[in-house]
C-alpha cells in the first residue's frame, strides 16, 4: 500500500496555516531528537552495563506525540503509558534527565526510581509514564476533573494503546468523562499490535476502536498518524471541544512501531511479516514524510535537515555521557519519596513508624 497522504487538505487547516517555518522545522527537530535519543538508549541497553527492566521504543510513532503535544498550551496536560520517551521529549524534557533515568541515576527525572516506563515532569504538565496497561486512563480523567474544578480552560491528552482499550477502567473513564463533561481527550495510538497480538486478535469492534465512544455519546475521529498536518488539525478540533464545551473526545491515530514491543521482545520479527515493517519504514516513515513535505514547501533543504539530525545525535551522545557520569542513588535513598510527610519531616512525618524493616 502506498502512503495515504493527500497533500493540502489538512495543511490548509487554520491551526496549520499559522505554523511558521521555524515551528515546522521544530516539529522535524523534535522527531529527530526522539529517534536519536532512543537509538542511543537502545545501543546502551544492549551494551548491558547500566540499564535493566523494560525499554519500550517509540520509534516509528514520533509524529503522534510531536504533532499532538505541539498544540498544548499552559493548561493542557499530558499523560501516557510506558512507551513514554517520545511524549517526554515532546513536552520539553531534556535528554539528560531522561537518559539518566534509564541509567538509574539520581540525576534522572525520577531520581532513578522509575526507569523507562516512569518519566515525569509535572512542571511541564507531564504526568507520566505508567506501567499498568490503561491504568493511566482514569488519572487523565482526574487531571481534566481538576482543571474544570479549578476553572482553568485546558484539557488532558491521555494516550493509550490499541490493546489498552480492553481494560475495563478505560470504559468506566469514558462514561464518567461523558456524564460529567470533562475536558479529556483519549488518544489511542493504534500501532496494530499489543505485544505479539494483532488488533484483530485482541479487539472486537465496528469501524474502529475509537467508535466505541459512540456508546457513551462521545465524539470520536480516526487519524492517519503519518501526516502531522492531519494529526494537528483533528487533534485541535478535539482540544477546542474540550476547551470551549468541556466535552471529551476519543481519537484513534494509526501508526506503527518499528522495533519489538520492548527490547526484551524476542519475537519482534515473528508475529509481524518483516515486509510489513519494511513497507512502513519505506513508505510511511513520519520523519521522512515530514522532511519531504517541508522540502516541497521549500521550508528546509537536505543539508539543513541533515544538520538537525546531526544535532539530535550529538545531543543524545552528550546525554549518554551525562548519564554515565552521574551518581547512583545511595542505599538510604530507597526510603525517600515514599511519603511526602516523611520527606518533608513534618510533624505528621515524624509521628509513628512508617517503615518496618526493624
Amino acid at each position, binding site marked *: 500500500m502506498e502512503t495515504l497522504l493527500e497533500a493540502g487538505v489538512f495543511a490548509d487547516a487554520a491551526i496549520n496555516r499559522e505554523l511558521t517555518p521555524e515551528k515546522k522545522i521544530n516539529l522535524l527537530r523534535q522527531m529527530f531528537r526522539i529517534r536519536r535519543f532512543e537509538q542511543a538508549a537502545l545501543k546502551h541497553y544492549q551494551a548491558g552495563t547500566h540499564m535493566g527492566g523494560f525499554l519500550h521504543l517509540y520509534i516509528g510513532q514520533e509524529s503522534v506525540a510531536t504533532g499532538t503535544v505541539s498544540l498544548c498550551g499552559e493548561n493542557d496536560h499530558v499523560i501516557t503509558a510506558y512507551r513514554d520517551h517520545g511524549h517526554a521529549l515532546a513536552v520539553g524534557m531534556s535528554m539528560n534527565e531522561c537518559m539518566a533515568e534509564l541509567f538509574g541515576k539520581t540525576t534522572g527525572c525520577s531520581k532513578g526510581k522509575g526507569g523507562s516506563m516512569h518519566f515525569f515532569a509535572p512542571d511541564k504538565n507531564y504526568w507520566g509514564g505508567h506501567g499498568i496497561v490503561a491504568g493511566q486512563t482514569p488519572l487523565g480523567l482526574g487531571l481534566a476533573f481538576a482543571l474544570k474544578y479549578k476553572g482553568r480552560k485546558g484539557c488532558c491528552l491521555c494516550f493509550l494503546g490499541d490493546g489498552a482499550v480492553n481494560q475495563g477502567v478505560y470504559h468506566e473513564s469514558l*462514561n464518567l468523562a461523558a456524564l460529567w463533561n470533562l475536558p479529556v481527550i483519549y488518544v489511542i495510538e493504534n500501532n496494530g499490535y499489543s505485544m505479539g497480538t494483532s488488533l484483530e486478535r485482541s479487539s472486537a469492534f465496528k469501524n474502529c476502536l475509537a467508535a466505541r465512544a459512540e456508546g457513551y455519546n462521545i465524539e470520536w475521529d480516526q487519524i492517519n498518524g503519518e501526516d502531522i498536518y492531519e494529526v494537528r488539525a483533528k487533534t485541535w478540533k478535539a482540544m477546542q471541544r474540550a476547551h470551549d464545551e468541556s466535552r471529551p473526545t476519543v481519537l484513534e491515530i494509526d501508526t506503527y512501531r518499528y522495533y519489538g514491543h520492548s527490547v526484551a521482545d524476542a519475537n519482534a520479527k515473528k508475529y509481524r511479516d518483516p515486509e510489513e515493517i519494511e513497507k512502513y519504514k519505506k513508505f510511511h516513515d513520519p520523519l521522512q514524510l515530514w522532511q519531504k513535505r517541508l522540502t516541497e514547501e521549500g521550508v528546509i533543504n537536505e543539508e539543513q535537515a541533515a544538520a538537525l539530525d546531526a544535532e539530535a545525535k550529538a545531543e543524545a551522545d552528550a546525554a549518554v555521557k551525562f548519564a554515565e557520569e552521574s551518581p547512583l542513588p545511595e542505599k538510604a535513598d530507597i526510603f525517600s519519596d515514599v511519603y511526602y510527610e516523611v520527606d518533608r519531616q513534618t510533624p505528621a512525618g515524624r509521628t509513628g513508624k512508617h517503615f518496618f524493616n526493624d
Partner: protein
Amino acid sequence: MPQITYRKALNDALAEELTRDENVVLIGEEVAQYNGAYKVTEGLWKRFGDKRVVDAPISEAGFIGMSVGASMLGIRPVVELMFWSFAYVAYDQIVNNAGCVRYMSGGLINCPIVIRGPANGGTNVGATHSHTPESILANNPGVKVVCPATAYDAKGLMKSAIRDNDPVFVMENTLLYGETWEVPDEEYLIPLGVADVKREGADVSLIAHGRAVLTSLKAAEILANEHGISAEVVDLRSIRPLDEETILQSVRKTHRAVLVDENKPFCAVSAQIASMIQEKAFDDLDAPVLRVCSLDAPAIYSPPLEKMQLPTPERVVEKVLSIR
C-alpha cells in the same frame, strides 16, 4: 461534653474540612442526593452543592483513579466506598496509582487523597461485603491506614487524614455508626500514628483496632469482675504509621499480650504486631503473644452464626485465662 454518634462525628469532620479548604471534594456512590448509603454524608450536598459533593456511577476503579489524578493537581478528594470491600474492583488504582506514583516519580508528585467507608463483618451481608482490608493495604509502603474505634477518634483522625498529603485510607464500621461517645464542640485533630490506651491495666495487654477495641474493653470488664485480672486495652487507632512505642510500653509493663483482630488470622495486622512484640520485647514476655481473630472462613450469612464468627469478649477472656 455532648454525646454524638460515630456517624455524626464523621459528618462533622467532613463538613469542617469542606468549609476549611475549597479543594476538598467528596465523591462516591449515593453520597450527595441520597445523603450516603449509611448517612455519613447527610446534609452535605444540600449545604455544599454539586461541585463539592459528587454522586458517582458504580465505577469504583474509574472514580478512584480519577480522584488520584485530580489529587496530583492539588484537589483533595475524599472518596467514599459504600463498603471497603468494593475496593477490590479498584485495587490496582489504589495500590499502584495512589500508592506508587510518588515513588516512581522520584517525589515529584504526591496524592492527598482520602478513601473512606465501612470495613467490617457482623451485619450478615455475606462474604463479598465483609472484607477488612487494613492488613493487605498497609502491606504497601506509600499508603496510610487508620481504623477509628470511637466517635472521638473518628472525627480527629478523619480531619488529620484529609489534611495529610499522602494517601490515607480510613476504615469505619457500620456497627459503630449509631453508637455515641463524648465529642467536644471545639475543633481538635488526632495525629496519625498515635495509639491510645483506652483502659489502664497491669496484668495483660489487650491490643486491638476498630470495633475489636470495644470487644477488648468488654473483655477487660469481665476479667476484672470475674477473674480479678487487670487488663490494659491499647487501641492502635492508626495501622500505618504505627505507634510501636505505646504497644511496647504496655507489654513491658504487663508482660502478657493478647491481640484482638476482626480480620481473618493469616497475615492479619495482629500477626505483624505479635511478630514485632516478640522481636522487641522478647525478654519482657512471660507468655506467648496470643491472637483472637475472626473464625477463619469467609463471612457466613446466618445471623446467629456470624456473631460467633467475629471475636467475642468471651473468646478474649478465654485466651487471657490460658496464659494467666
